[in-house]
């Protein structure tokens, strides 16, 4: 953690709202992405964004600089999301209508026009949607590790710290998640 960030956190701990807002601006995109990758629902992800930052605001005084601020923040997000999923217990069986909406939503987030061929674009969209579907089949913790490592580029050590478990456990989650994903996307892996 750099000195500037430390100073900002200390200011925010003293109640300086501007300092807290600069922390929000620095990390909120990541928080939103992380929440979305766990709940796969745009509105829920936005609610989680709000709740997490309110929680962080109330508990900032408890942060004692023993870890990176980002790690502490992501831990709050992860714990909140895991509890949220337990509470809501949104089932994996989506109605056809909802599935198509979700897929459409993901399509928007897939590739940004670097394939000029419309057919390839369509195939890519289909694949992206299948990958999303496969990720939803993973257990919450497998999903978390897979998303954080593969799509967000966090190191396994950092993920272990965020989840509050050992690196070995995280490796196991990643390994099981990859195997399951490979099985679910077998037809594409073969091509």
């Amino acid at each position, binding site marked *: 953690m750099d000195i500037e960030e430390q100073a900002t956190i200390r200011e925010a701990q003293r109640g300086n709202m501007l300092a*807290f807002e600069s922390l929000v601006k620095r990390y909120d995109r990541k928080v939103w*992405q992380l929440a979305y*990758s766990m709940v796969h629902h745009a509105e829920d992800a936005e609610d989680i964004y*709000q709740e997490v930052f309110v929680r962080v605001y109330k508990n900032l005084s408890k942060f004692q600089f023993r870890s990176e601020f980002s790690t502490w923040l992501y831990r709050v997000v992860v714990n909140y999301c895991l509890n949220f999923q337990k509470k809501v217990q949104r089932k994996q069986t989506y109605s056809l209508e909802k599935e198509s909406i979700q897929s459409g939503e993901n399509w928007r987030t897939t590739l940004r026009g670097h394939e000029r061929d419309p057919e390839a674009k369509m195939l890519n969209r289909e694949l992206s949607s299948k990958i999303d579907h496969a990720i939803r089949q993973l257990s919450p913790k497998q999903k978390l590790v897979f998303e954080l490592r593969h799509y967000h580029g966090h190191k396994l050590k950092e993920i272990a710290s965020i989840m509050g478990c050992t690196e070995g456990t995280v490796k196991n989650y990643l390994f099981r998640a990859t195997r399951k994903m490979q099985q679910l996307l077998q037809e594409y892996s073969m091509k």
Partner: protein
Amino acid sequence: MKLPEQLDKYALLYLYDELDKLEKQAFETHLKYNADSRKRVDELRAFHGVLAARKPFEPSEEALAFARANLRQRLREERRQMLRPGWWESLRMGLSFRMAPGAVAFSLVLFLVGIQIGRLLVPQKTRNRIASENLLQSHDRLAISDVDMIRYEPKTGIVNVEYKILQDVVLQGNIKDEAIRQVLIHTIMTEDHPGRRLMAIKATGGAAFSDHDLEDALIHAMERDEVSGVRLRAAKVLRYLSMTADIKQAFIRVLLKDPNPAMRMEALDVLSRLRETDVLPIFQNASRDDENEFVRLKASRILERTENPEVGDRSQSN
């Protein structure tokens, strides 16, 4: 051939660059001599190629700005709640007074003696005016309990504030004084009496200031105050501040949600002066759907002027 689980794990960690230096060297040596492991690494690499078709969700700048504005609103509410003493604390304070009448009487005597000494030593005129700098020096955080009076003199820009900390305090200064601003923010956010809230808002309008918290308080008043006169006054002050994204969003929300047509007219007026195209769809909605005829008419005229600026300018100059 299927690889043993341990080797399979190594292949995965190798691709993610999660092996330490020695493990990596050993695994690379192993790969040179083991075709099955090489094949597995290639399979995993191809699988990563497949996974690249999905990009992680990316919130738009607009959505982030909106979420930040909502968050700011919520945090303000939280802070407001945190400043208020809880019922348990209030009860305990009340009880502690009741349980120690001797201490209360002793404090009262000391207080009265203090007042008498003060009257003897300090001349009348200087006693009633405490410079806000001194007040700030003597109190790191102002524990404001009640605001009694705010008086604003538009000609001189002087604001007089009377409020309680442990005893009555009289402040004199202008909007550039932090102590004055703190009292005004407190009044706007928490005062029950609408007249005092109105006067606090009026007192912020005398000079330019750069205080994010005060700006937030004014936005809060414009959007949330229950008295429309107070909301309108806040809007009138905000329109003369430099137009930040937060203020603009607040005016858009007023145009969309405020029940009072005068407020919506004010918002229309402010937003139209920005001459920005992103608000045009909101004007179109207002010209079509607003329940008030005057608001609809004003929105239509703004749209007309936007579409044909020459006509608009001519009619304005006329």
